C-alpha cells in the first residue's frame, strides 16, 4: 500500500504542480459558464440602427395601422424615460402600392433588402380582417433575410392581430372596453411541493419552481462530473501509453506490481479530480452565499456528487489505463479513444429528455445502467422531482460492483499488455487476457 501511496503522490504532484493545471482550473468554469455569460451579455446588446419596412397592404387598413403604431412607438417607446438614452431602434413603416406584376415587385423589394436599402417588406392579404374562401388572402407574409429570428416580425404580428381584433369586435357592435377580459390570458405558474419544516414542524409552503432548480442545477452537476472525468480519467489512456512506449512502465515494474502501478495512476487521477471538484464546489458555495442566494445551493446533492465522482473516475480511469496499456503509440491511442469515450458521451446526449422527465422510463432505466449511473442518476437527483429512494441505492450498488469488476478486469488486461510490444491486441485477444489473466 505504501508503494501505491508513493505512486499516487507522484501522479498528483506531476498533475497539480503544472501551469496547465492552474490554467485548466480557470478555463473550465469559463468554458462551462461561457455560453450562459455570452447569452446574458448579448441580451442587452440591442441593434439600435433604424429599420425601414415597406408594406404592401391589400386589406385597406391594417398597413396604415402599422405605419401609425410604428410612428407612435418611435416617439414614445424607444428611449429610456429616466436617462433619455435610445434603447430600441426606430421602425419606419411605409406603404407601397401593389403592382400588376406582383412577383416582379416582390423580387425588386427582395433585392432592396439584400442591398440593405430596406430591412424587410410585408404583404398583408385582402381578407385578413374578415376571412374569405381563399385562405391565401388571409395571410400576413413577412419577407426578410432572417425572418425566423427577426423581432420585427413578432412586432408586426402582435400589432396587426390587436388591430384586427378591435375591428372584428367593433363589427359585432360591442364596446371593446367591455370585452377586454375576453382576451386576458392567465398562465399556470409552476410550483414545487409542500413539505414539513424540520425546525418548526409546521407545513412549509411550496416554493415557486424555477428554471434554475429544474435545469441549471442538474446541468451544472452533469457538466462538473463530465469535466472531472475528462480531466482526470480520459488522459490516463495517453499517459499510460506514453509511459509504456517510453519504457517508464518497465522501470517501475522492477519495483511495483502492474496492479499497484495501475492503482497509483488511477487514484492519483482521482486525487486531482477531487481537488479540482472541491475547489469549484467550495468556490461556488462561497460565491452564491455572498450573493445572498444561499438557499438555492443544493446541499443535499453534494455528498451524492462526490460519491458518484469517486466511482466514475475510478471506473473510467481503470478502463482508460487498461486500454492505454494495450497501445504502443499515439496512433493506437487515438484509434481507441473515441470508442472508449462513448459511454461518457451518451449521458450528455440524453440530458434534456432526462431533465424533462426524470421519472420516465428512459431516465429511470438509463440511470440504472452502471456506466451511466454516476452521471444520469446524479442529474435525476439534482432535479426538483423526488425519485424513489431505492433507485439511487440500487444504482450505487450497481456502479460499485461494476467498478470493482472493471478494476479486476482492467488490472488483468493492464498486467498482460503493459510490457507487450508490437501490434495492438485485438478485442478477442484482450478478452482472452482478461479471462486467463
Amino acid at each position: 500500500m505504501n508503494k501505491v501511496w508513493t505512486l499516487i503522490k507522484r501522479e498528483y504532484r506531476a498533475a497539480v504542480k503544472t501551469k496547465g493545471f492552474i490554467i485548466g482550473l480557470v478555463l473550465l468554469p469559463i468554458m462551462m459558464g461561457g455560453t450562459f455569460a455570452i447569452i446574458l451579455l448579448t441580451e442587452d446588446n440591442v441593434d439600435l440602427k433604424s429599420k425601414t419596412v415597406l408594406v404592401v397592404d391589400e386589406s385597406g387598413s391594417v398597413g396604415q395601422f402599422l405605419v401609425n403604431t410604428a410612428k407612435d412607438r418611435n416617439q414614445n417607446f424607444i428611449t429610456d424615460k429616466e436617462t433619455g438614452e435610445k434603447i430600441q431602434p426606430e421602425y419606419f413603416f411605409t406603404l407601397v402600392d401593389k403592382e400588376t406584376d406582383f412577383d416582379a415587385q416582390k423580387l425588386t423589394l427582395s433585392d432592396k433588402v439584400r442591398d440593405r436599402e430596406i430591412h424587410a417588406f410585408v404583404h398583408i392579404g385582402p381578407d385578413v380582417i374578415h376571412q374569405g374562401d381563399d385562405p391565401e388572402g388571409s395571410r400576413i407574409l413577412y419577407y426578410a433575410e432572417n425572418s425566423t429570428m427577426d423581432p420585427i416580425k413578432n412586432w408586426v404580428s402582435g400589432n396587426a392581430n390587436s388591430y384586427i381584433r378591435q375591428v372584428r369586435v367593433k363589427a359585432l357592435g360591442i364596446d371593446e372596453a367591455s370585452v377586454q377580459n375576453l382576451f386576458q390570458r392567465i398562465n399556470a405558474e409552476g410550483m414545487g411541493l409542500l413539505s414539513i419544516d424540520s425546525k418548526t414542524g409546521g407545513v412549509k409552503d411550496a416554493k415557486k419552481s424555477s428554471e434554475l432548480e429544474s435545469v441549471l442545477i442538474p446541468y451544472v452537476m452533469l457538466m462538473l462530473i463530465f469535466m472531472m472525468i475528462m480531466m482526470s480519467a480520459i488522459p490516463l489512456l495517453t499517459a499510460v501509453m506514453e509511459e509504456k512506449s517510453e519504457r517508464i512502465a518497465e522501470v517501475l515494474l522492477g519495483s511495483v506490481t502492474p496492479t499497484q502501478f495501475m492503482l497509483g495512476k488511477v487514484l492519483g487521477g482521482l486525487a486531482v479530480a477531487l481537488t479540482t471538484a472541491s475547489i469549484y464546489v467550495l468556490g461556488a458555495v462561497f460565491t452564491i452565499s455572498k450573493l445572498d442566494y444561499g438557499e438555492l445551493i443544493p446541499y443535499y446533492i453534494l455528498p451524492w456528487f462526490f460519491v458518484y465522482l469517486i466511482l466514475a473516475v475510478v471506473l473510467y480511469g481503470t478502463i482508460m489505463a487498461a486500454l492505454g496499456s494495450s497501445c504502443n503509440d499515439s496512433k493506437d491511442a487515438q484509434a481507441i479513444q473515441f470508442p472508449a469515450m462513448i459511454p461518457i458521451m451518451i449521458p450528455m446526449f440524453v440530458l434534456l429528455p432526462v431533465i424533462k422527465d426524470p421519472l420516465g422510463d428512459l431516465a429511470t432505466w438509463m440511470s440504472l445502467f452502471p456506466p451511466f449511473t454516476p452521471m444520469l442518476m446524479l442529474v435525476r437527483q439534482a432535479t426538483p422531482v423526488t425519485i424513489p429512494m431505492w433507485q439511487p441505492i440500487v444504482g450505487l450498488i450497481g456502479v460499485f460492483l461494476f467498478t470493482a469488476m472493471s478494476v479486476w478486469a482492467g488490472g488483468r488486461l493492464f498486467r498482460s499488455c503493459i510490457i507487450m510490444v508490437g501490434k495492438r491486441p485485438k478485442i478477442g485477444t484482450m478478452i482472452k487476457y482478461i479471462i486467463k489473466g
Partner: protein
Amino acid sequence: MNIIELDNITKTYGSHKAVDDLTLHVPKGSIYGFIGPNGSGKTTTIRMIMNILYPDNGNIKLFGQELIGSRLEKVGYLPEERGLYKKMKVKELIKFHGELKGVADLDRLADEWLEKFDLTRWADKKVEALSKGMSQKVQFIVTIIDMPEIIILDEPFSGLDPVNAEIIKEVILKLRDQGSTIIFSTHDMSVAEKMCDYIFMIYKGKKVLDGTLQSIQEKFGSDTIRVQSEMGVKAFDGIQGIERVNDFGQLQEVKMMPQTDSQEVLKAVMAKTRVLKFELTSPSLNDIFIRIARPENNEDHE
C-alpha cells in the same frame, strides 16, 4: 547456494519460441554474464526472472522460493531501454524510486550517489535536460539505491563513455564484494570475459553456453592462433588447414581446421613474411560467439 534457479523455462510469442526449455542456476555472490545475438531471448529471460513476463512452462526460483506473482523485494533491475519521468527533477526522481523500494535516509543517499557519479550540479535539473549517458547513470543509481541482493542489468554499459563505464564497473564489483549477485547482459565480449565469473549464452531461445570462461574455452579446445606479421591478413592467402581468419588489422585470429598442425601454419606464414608474434591459444569469447551465431549458422537453424 544458487540464488536464482530457472528450470525448463519456455516462453512463446505466438508461433515464435523466445525461450526454449532453459535451465540456468546462478550462484549467490557471482557475476553472471548473459550474451547472445539480438533477439535471441536474453531480455525475455531477464523479464521472466523479474516476474514481468510469466513463463509458459517451467519454474523460476529466487532466494530458493518460487515466484508467486508478487513483486520482488531486494532485486534491482535496469531494463535494456531507459525509462525515466522526463519532467521530474533528478534528485526527486532518485528519491521517488528509493521510496518505492522502501529505502530510508534517502536524502543523504541520493546526494552521495549523485556525487559519486559527478551529477551533483544536475540534482535540481529536470531529467529531460540530461544527456543519454547522464540519464543512464541516473537510471543505474535508481537500480542500486537500495543495495539489492540481486541486481539485473540489461546492457548497463551501452552508450557510456569509458570514464563512466569504469565507474559503473567499479560499483558493480563493489556490490559483488558486498554480497550482491549480479546478472548483466552485454554485447561487449571483452567486458564479459574480464568481469564475469560465469557466462551464459542464449541463441534462438536455447542455451548454448553456460559456465566459467575457462570451461567454455576448454570445450572449444586450442584450435586458434593469434598472429602478428608484416603482411597482415594477406599472409594467410592460400594456406591450407585454415577454417577462418578474424582480422583485427594489426593482429589476426585464425581458427584452424581439426587436425591442422599449428607449426605447419607458422612455417607457411614465415615463408611469406616476417612474423612478429605467434600464439597458440583458446578461442576468445568473441570468436566463440561468432562461431555460434555467424550467418551460416543462422541459415542452418532456419
